[in-house]
């Protein structure tokens, strides 16, 4: 069973299709990246998954069924537009929102304390939300998102506005959740941010799917037959190399169509060049995105 099945959803605002015939599945226990530039339709897609807005057509199944009150209790949702009651204290907010997910107050307080401790925010538990810094508020909001230990966690732009320390904290928390077998869907317009986290991804642009699949497969599909090497001494001219690009210390070698990376390595070794680093150059998600969208334009 998939955690989420999205079938041909369509949502139009006026004459503009915000989400246009989008389909994808999310497997249980994976981290799924929903990526695309601003305004691509990520948030609209997520809101439809959460049944906050209804698609014009198409259907969505969450954990095998249409979203209902019971399945809502198994989902943790961090909206893109963050917000909590400003005048409420941190702990009261945690307990109140947990209660709306069916968690009793004592358990919520207990888990809340643990999570706050982990984020070094326990001393702030009685502060009002408005007294927190932006980053702290965001961490508190993430705690509220996972306080009921949901099976499926949907994070809309979780890293936006976070400093590096909090970003790392959040990434660690996400990895922990995955270890516990939770399914995580993350959307972001900062594509390189989540490369290291995602198992699979859906890339959308202007409401349409442009890429969908396993991260490593996607990357290898878009490999441009070049290799990054770091060597001692000059390389000189090597057969099969049609271009060289310097990237701080390393050199990216572009190979012609007949040459494989394996052949290049053999030639380097034959020439007696000391190789400190030899790796297939895979494009970043941003590069892939630009390539895909660029292709579409052509």
């Amino acid at each position, binding site marked *: 069973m998939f955690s989420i099945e999205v079938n041909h959803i369509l949502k139009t605002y006026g004459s503009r299709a915000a989400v246009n015939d989008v389909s994808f599945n999310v497997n249980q226990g994976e981290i799924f990246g929903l990526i695309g530039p601003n305004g691509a339709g990520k948030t609209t897609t997520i*809101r439809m998954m*959460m049944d*906050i*807005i209804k698609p014009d057509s198409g259907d969505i199944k969450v954990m095998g069924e249409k979203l209902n009150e019971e399945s809502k209790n198994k989902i943790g949702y961090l*909206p893109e537009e963050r*917000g*909590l009651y400003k005048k409420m204290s941190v702990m009261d907010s945690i307990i109140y929102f947990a209660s*709306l997910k069916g968690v009793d107050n004592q358990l919520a307080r207990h888990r809340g304390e643990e999570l706050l401790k982990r984020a070094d925010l326990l001393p702030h538990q009685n502060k009002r939300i408005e007294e927190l810094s932006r980053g702290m508020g965001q961490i508190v909001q993430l705690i509220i998102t996972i306080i009921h230990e949901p099976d499926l966690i949907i994070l809309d732009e979780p890293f936006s506005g976070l400093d590096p320390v909090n970003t790392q904290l959040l990434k660690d928390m996400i990895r922990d959740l995955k270890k516990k077998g939770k399914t995580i869907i993350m959307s972001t317009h900062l594509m390189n941010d989540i490369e290291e986290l995602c198992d699979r991804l859906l890339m959308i642009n202007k409401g349409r799917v442009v890429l969908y699949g396993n991260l490593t497969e996607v990357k290898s599909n878009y490999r441009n037959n070049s290799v990054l090497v770091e060597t001692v001494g000059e390389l000189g001219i090597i057969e099969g190399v049609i271009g060289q690009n310097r990237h701080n210390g390393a050199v990216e070698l572009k190979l012609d169509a007949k040459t494989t990376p394996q052949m290049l390595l053999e030639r380097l070794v034959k020439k007696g060049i000391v190789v400190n680093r030899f790796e297939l150059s895979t494009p970043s998600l941003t590069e892939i995105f630009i390539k895909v969208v660029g292709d579409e334009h052509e």
Partner: protein
Amino acid sequence: MNKTFLLIKHEFLNTVRRKAFIILTLAFPLIALLGIVAGQVIPKMITPTTTIEKIGYIDKIGSFNQGIDENNIQLIPYSTEDDAKAALIKKDIKEYFVIGTEYISTGLIHSYTLTSEIAPSTTVQTVIRDFLLNNLLKGNTADVIQRAKSPLNIASTTLTTAGTPASRQGGFSALILPYIFSILLMIAIFTSSGYLLQGLGEEKENRVMEILLSSISPKQLLAGKVLGLGAAGLVQIIVWLISANFLMKIASATWGNVFGSLQVPPDFLILGIIYFILGYLLEAVLMAGVGSVSPTAREGQQMSAIFIIPVIIPIYFMGLIMEHPENIIVKLLTFIPITAPLTVIVRLGLSSIPLWELLVSIGILILSIWGLFVLTTKLFRTYLLMYGKRPDLKEIVRSFKEA
């Protein structure tokens, strides 16, 4: 625990803990109490000092000799106008008046003073009148003279068709009760529904809405908010009603002669609460509709005037409602849901309302609340998350059809 109930509890507690709410709830009883206490204390403070004023008179008829000493005013007879004038100029007397020979046929009395005044003071007038009556009715018993001074003292009783005294007796208390209560009812309705509108606007602005909707349905959200704030409003009304009962006892003791005995009849209480609940629910659902289509709390507040003004309409028709409760316009106001609560409260103070009219009015109210609730949940869902954009009328109508 049921999620709607959680929301009701949250909204209720959040509201009754607000400073503004507490102040407003306590302000009315306190202000009223202050007024009553002031009514008792101030007259005592401003009672004039007991200096005796002297007023001279000249009796040209010759039979006005029944002296009088009333309200600290002493009447002093003078034989000629010149004597009186001299005494006035010397300030021995404050003023003097002349009973001329033609007085019996004309009733004309000439009065002379040193200071100009708009009209002789009522105290002076009363003293002179009583003096004249005493003399005109000379030979009658003191009781008869007293009656002539104050011949009419009406005690009217409204009877039922069965010939027994009716539960409502009209009079000043019948007027003041509906008046005060219609205002209190209005304030309670507007306060709670205003909080609803404000709350929705805030949740929209601080984006809590989306988190709420990821846990509960729009219907639960709306029902929880409306009922939670309504419960807070009900507490407010009940505090007012209880303190009103208490205050009226004090007021009756103080101003019993003006108000008669003020008391809140039980059916007035019960219907008052029923109409508060219905009036509030109607207004709350309307406000929720306004709240969901307006992008900010402030804009919502401005738009809400459309639904506030009609509630007050019965106040403008108060005279009509009081004097002609059977008028067709009054009946209409009783049936139109948005004007019904205030109209019924005002009518109740004066006469009983036929049961069928009450039932029809309550029935229409309940149906419109239900209908509007269903429509509003649809609006809610469509527009709640449209930040910074207000839909035009055409879009709203379309969303009713689609939802």
